[in-house]
């Protein structure tokens, strides 16, 4: 039975496996378990694995391996998933100070309007629970999290910003993220953290991994300097 995953060709050098018929949590576990399995077999030619919320992108060199080989490995591992022991890595928890609204979160009023809430209600929801990191994504290892329990998904900006500053805290759809490096971005910005998200010389690059959680804490603009340049790695708690 391979009915928990749908595998689609994605060009001459890629495949996408999507979890189906599973809950959010289990589907996410499945695609990350598939990525772990491919990592473990060290198949020649596989050079990119991007597990996210409910999908896994596999990129490979089609002179070294092929779609059929990868498809059969993925099916095999997906079938094993139901019986296999689940990942046991102990999640870490990061407590991250954020200045909400104003120049640090210019889209907070608009997000509040879209949700029919006040700005402080939006902040309360964003800071009110631990948010789970589901994957590391664009740009540059950004922690992509489940969004806070907002009453509705958040639309992306009609016109993306050319530059989003590092530390910006954004929400879109049912997702939340911290932007680690300056980059263009189309997600509404509700706040910004003074802590330093990435240390470019550390390997692996990020202090956080899928499964870890972030708890955001509101601070006032006056407190910015107290946290400026604190590495995120020092913010677990």
């Amino acid at each position, binding site marked *: 039975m391979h009915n928990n995953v749908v595998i689609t060709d994605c*060009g*001459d*050098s890629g495949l996408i496996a999507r979890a189906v018929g599973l809950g959010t949590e289990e589907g996410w576990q499945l695609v990350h378990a598939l990525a772990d399995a491919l990592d473990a077999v060290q198949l020649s030619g596989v050079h*990119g694995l*991007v597990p996210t919320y409910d999908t896994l*992108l596999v990129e490979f060199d089609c002179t070294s391996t092929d779609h059929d080989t990868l498809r059969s490995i993925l099916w095999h591992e997906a079938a094993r998933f139901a019986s296999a022991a689940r990942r046991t890595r102990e999640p870490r928890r990061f407590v991250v100070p954020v200045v909400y609204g104003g120049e640090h979160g210019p889209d907070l009023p608009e997000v509040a309007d879209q949700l029919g809430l006040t700005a402080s209600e939006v902040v309360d929801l964003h800071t009110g629970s631990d948010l789970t990191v589901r994957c590391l994504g664009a740009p540059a290892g950004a922690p992509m999290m489940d969004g806070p329990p907002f009453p509705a998904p958040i639309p992306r900006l009609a016109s993306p910003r050319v530059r989003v500053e590092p530390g910006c805290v954004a929400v879109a759809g049912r997702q939340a993220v911290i932007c680690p490096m300056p980059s263009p971005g189309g997600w509404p910005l509700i706040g910004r953290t003074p802590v330093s998200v990435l240390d*470019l010389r550390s390997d692996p*690059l990020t202090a956080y991994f899928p499964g870890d959680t972030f708890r955001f804490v509101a601070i006032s603009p006056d407190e910015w300097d107290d946290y400026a340049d604190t590495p995120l790695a020092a913010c677990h708690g």
Partner: protein
Amino acid sequence: MAETLVIRTPGLTTVQDLGRVGRSRYGLPANGACDQHSARVANVLCGNDDRAPLLEITALDFACTPSSDILIAVTGAPADLTVAGVLRPQWEPVSVRAGDTIRVSNIRQGLRVYLAVLGSFEADYLQGSCAPDTVLGFGTGLNTGDELVLPASCPPVAHPFSGIPLFRLHAPVPRLSSPWTIDVTDGPDRADFGDTGARLFAAPFTVTPQSNHIGLRLRGDVPRRVTKGEILSRGVPIGAIEVPAGDELLVLHRGRGVTAGYPVLAVVTATGLSALGQVRPGQAISFRHRTLDQAITAYRAQRNAVDALRTRVHSAFAALRIPVPVCS
């Protein structure tokens, strides 16, 4: 004292390699040479590892001078390559004497030229690669007076009659021509576009100036997504053709962020991506539909040709007693 390659005219040149592989799970894009085929061939012609650092010269004239005798190979877009003022061939190894100036000028038709040196040169690495990552701010362009350290030299390989090309290794030279034909296969979200998906092949698209190694923006009669609903962020491959809101197609290239939320209409083939790395803003692209089998066959043929070249290079170097560099 270390032997060096001194940069005289930097143009738009970076130290480059084939990219940062295996880090996409950590959110890092591959980056690396935009025309992977030309970059690979340049290193192969120097007997180097395919992944050795080399120079990627974009659009503008470039010049440098080595302090020792070296062997170089220049591939990519057609250009005028001169050594000490004498025109030399691209796509073949070229001997350069200490103090001679290597000049690459008049880059035409395509956009990027690759210059490899036998034994390569020392480079800074980040996460396993020297490829620049503009989002991380790693790997800046070269400046006048910069010196690249050369770990190996190569005694002059002299032909008794000057001006006659010494090597005839018949490297696989790609056809570079505008209007460009770029091969694609169906993307995973082809069905989201209904009948409008066929527009991709109906008429050419024009590359806009807002195009770079991260992605190319194309103007034309763009297909439209006919389904609604939000897409959770997910991995998107290099070569993905996305259709954001607006009047442009987005073709993701080597610097692309690993996740995105737009539907993927089509995916550029592996051979098509190297060609796309040569397309200039303002030029026109026609997309050509290929099956997966056709695309894979074309790429395997291209790589087999490079493998055969590698064998010829090693034979020629052995005959000429040129030491093949040992690269890490």
